[in-house]
């Protein structure tokens, strides 16, 4: 194991995986090389690697380049609504509807980390339908203020305007969760 961990390909592999997950589907070779170097210089210290990731300029240049998986979407929506004690059935049926049934990844490699595997026309519509159902159950008192509380810096003027023109609070919640800023990560 020690030999494997020290092999240069391992550094490259781990650096690529991390960059793909946190930075972009196709991270630049520079980003991967920088992370790879940190991995080698610290003997694979994951803490140091994480810190390097946070320092990575590419992450901050394009903060919303990744597309949320259904799992990301579900967790972030419920967190934004401060929803607690949800029945397992609701969670499983939502994830199954959006094709990410828990613990049922299609291969031992796990769920895809690439936008193209999650953003397809019909699955986007399914997301929006699920989001509408959530909005109907959870209209918030002041949608614009609420959206600002968890998306403040990335919320665009276009999205703000769309939210303020929603025909009801439920629709406003649905528009917040459908927005490009919320769908991406």
């Amino acid at each position: 194991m020690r030999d494997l961990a020290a092999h240069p390909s391992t550094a490259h592999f781990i650096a690529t995986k991390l960059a793909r997950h946190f930075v972009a589907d196709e991270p630049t070779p520079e980003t991967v090389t920088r992370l790879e170097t940190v991995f080698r210089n610290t003997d694979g210290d994951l803490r140091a690697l994480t810190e390097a990731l946070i320092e990575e300029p590419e992450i901050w240049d394009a903060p919303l380049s990744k597309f949320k998986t259904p799992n990301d979407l579900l967790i972030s929506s419920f967190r934004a609504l401060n929803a607690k004690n949800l029945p397992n059935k609701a969670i499983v049926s939502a994830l199954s509807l959006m094709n990410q049934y828990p613990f049922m990844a299609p291969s031992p490699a796990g769920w895809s980390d690439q936008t193209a595997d999650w953003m397809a026309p019909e699955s986007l519509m399914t997301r929006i339908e699920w989001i509408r159902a959530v909005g109907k159950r959870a209209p918030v008192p002041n949608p614009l203020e609420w959206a600002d509380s968890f998306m403040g810096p990335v919320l665009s003027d276009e999205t703000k305007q769309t939210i303020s023109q929603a025909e009801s609070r439920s629709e406003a919640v649905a528009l917040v969760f459908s927005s490009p800023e919320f769908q991406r990560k």
Partner: protein
Amino acid sequence: MPTRRHLLKCLVAGTATAAAPISLARVQAAPADEKRLVVVLLRGGMDGLAAVPPYGDAAYRRQRGDLALPAPGQDGGVIDLDGFFGLHPSLEALHAFYKRDELAVAHAVGIPYRGRSHFDAQNVLENGTMTPHSTADGWLNRAIAALAQHDTPIGLSVGANVPLIMRGDARYTTYAPQVLPVAGADFLNRIEAMYQQDPVLAKTFAEAQRSRAMKAEVLGSGRGRIGADAYYKEAFGAAGKLLADPAGPRVAILDTDGWDTHAYQGTTAGPLASQLANLAVGLEQLHDGLATTWRYSVVLVVTEFGRTAAINGSNGTDHGTGALALVLGGAVRGGRMATSWPGLATGHLFEGRDLAPATDIRAIFKTALRDHLKLPERHIEEHVFPNSRSVAGLSGLIRT
């Protein structure tokens, strides 16, 4: 259609404090009062000038332009009501109610709020006061608090969540339909506009819309996987059946949305025509569900505001003021317009753009509470609609 037993089983408690689960065992039938009241909320600002066009108004065609409906007798023409007003052809089913003297049409009604925000206007419509966000409960809840309470709650809220109008101390039950209404064209247009910031999402969404439309055309059903009127059928039909049960609830709120028609609302066909057809189907289901209790029922169909008199630049209409309300039921003295008509000539419009609100909508609500549910005047004035003494009820709207 679900059976009544199934519906009763589906009833779930509204909130831990306010709602109580309905008992499955038949309790002693509630004595005396058979009166039923249903409020149907159309969120988004329903275009009353499209639903009940004043085709006899000299300014109608000029204001509405391409959105004006053909005259009665023409292909796709309005269905005449009284020689001046007519029904949108999608509401044809309501003509039977009108002919049976069970539908009164209140045009040019308005809430006591003149802003153009949906959120604030809906809040005023539901809270029963003059200002948005001034109460934590709704007027319908405060109204039923004055009725004799029985073992089971009087209130019923149909929809995914309980709207403000039914929230409060008086007990209510809830029923959540299994199907979700199909997303309205306006909602999808908003998403489309929002996605213009993100080319990849915009392209994916456009493709999704195109493929859904194609499938709907080939399969010949609605606009997507679920028929457009499935929600209306289930929600309204269920409300009727639950209300018809002698031991069930007696006052219900039915929540609908998708009435905000800023763009391409259509005329005899199109998004608004489909919505109106859904509403007509829903009201028929409600009537059928209520069965013999229809005789003792009043149904109020209301929206937060109307829309601009004139067509806008995108073949839609924008937020207006004077709105349409429908009052129907076996207990209604219908077959007529219960309307004071301000006219569509530009000089008569509110702020030069909207149908003027000639009747305070609270007059209709107060009439239903006073003449139908027989609530004490004092309770209505002090608790349900505070500071509304200047708004008199309408006489002769309810059969008493």
